[in-house]
């Protein structure tokens, strides 16, 4: 039960045969995760203090990137530990109750939804696929000269500069167009191996640790038995598409496929 003045942090929901869950990750705020069982379901929860996780503190702390990072990693670590034992439906970060009764009530009220979500994610995992636009490593300067040649000789340093600049812009537009076309192909081909897919907004270059713009940030729900085919397809697409650099992350718990109203990604 939650300590006086504390809150119950809810990580996710699993089947009710998860009673043995006790070890593993430290949990959000350092408290070991525990379980609450109701309606044939098990909620994975942890006790957190009001000083750090109360409403006002939480609002403030969520603005603190270091705090947010630590909390997100702790939330994720617990869900991963649960996922090793069986299907788990993750809750969105910062789902908090004032007591166990609130969690029990939610399990009871939403039992059908949770069961449906559990069967959706059972024996399936999420994979992340990102594509960055890159200039293929071929003689890039050549195309610039061709364009300049077509437009006639430059009559001075200023005109030459403008022609060069125009050629550069054209080249970078082409790179982007090619990258988007590749991303579209990659997205569609990988969808063939997935149960469902979803787009995330592209991440800002600084944040993603890449200099090149991201043109695809997608998540796929893939049956475990097809994970090999999926990753093989990724490798094949990587070899075939020169205008995008592809990265694969996962397997993840199925975060992206349990939110209400998301539905399948665009087709």
């Amino acid at each position, binding site marked *: 039960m939650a300590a006086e003045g504390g*809150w119950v942090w809810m990580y*996710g929901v699993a089947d009710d045969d998860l009673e043995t869950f006790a070890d593993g990750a430290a949990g959000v705020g350092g408290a070991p995760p525990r379980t609450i069982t109701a309606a044939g379901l098990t909620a994975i929860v942890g006790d957190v203090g009001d000083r750090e996780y*109360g409403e006002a503190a*939480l*609002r403030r702390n*969520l*603005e603190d990137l270091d705090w*947010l990072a630590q909390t*997100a*990693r702790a*939330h994720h670590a617990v869900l991963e530990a649960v996922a090793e034992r069986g299907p788990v439906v*993750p*809750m*969105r*970060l*910062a*789902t*908090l*109750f*004032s007591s166990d009764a*609130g969690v029990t009530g*939610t399990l009871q009220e*939403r039992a059908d*939804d949770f069961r449906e979500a559990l069967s959706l994610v059972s024996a399936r995992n*999420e994979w*992340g696929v990102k594509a960055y636009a890159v200039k293929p490593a071929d003689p890039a300067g050549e195309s610039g000269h061709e364009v300049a040649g077509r437009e006639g000789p430059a009559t001075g340093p200023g005109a030459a500069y403008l022609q060069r600049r125009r050629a550069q812009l054209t080249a970078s537009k082409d790179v982007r167009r090619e990258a*988007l076309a590749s*991303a*579209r192909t990659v*997205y569609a081909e990988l969808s063939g191996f997935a149960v469902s897919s979803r*787009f995330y*907004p*592209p*991440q*800002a*270059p*600084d*944040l993603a640790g890449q200099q090149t713009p*991201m*043109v695809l*940030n997608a998540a796929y729900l893939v049956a475990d038995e097809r994970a090999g085919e999926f*990753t093989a397809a*990724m*490798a*094949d697409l*990587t*070899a075939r598409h020169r205008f*995008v650099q*592809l*990265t*694969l*992350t*996962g397997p*993840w718990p199925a*975060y*992206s*496929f*349990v*939110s209400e109203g998301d539905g399948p990604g*665009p087709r």
Partner: protein
Amino acid sequence: MTGPGYDPVIQGERIALVDLLDRVLAGGVVIVGDITLSIAEVDLVRVSLRALVTSISGLMEAMDDSQEYS
């Protein structure tokens, strides 16, 4: 076959924070807990951490555009 551009995250390797935040802030089941920050405030967090959410145009928008014209 793996090329230089193929970069799977190996189990146990440190996951990029940005990929994790995509998922824990925009994924997961949303329920009304006793603190309902999980719905409204987290969206505000995404706005205030501008660096995290600076939207750049990508395939998603390009696809939206192409749907308009097709």
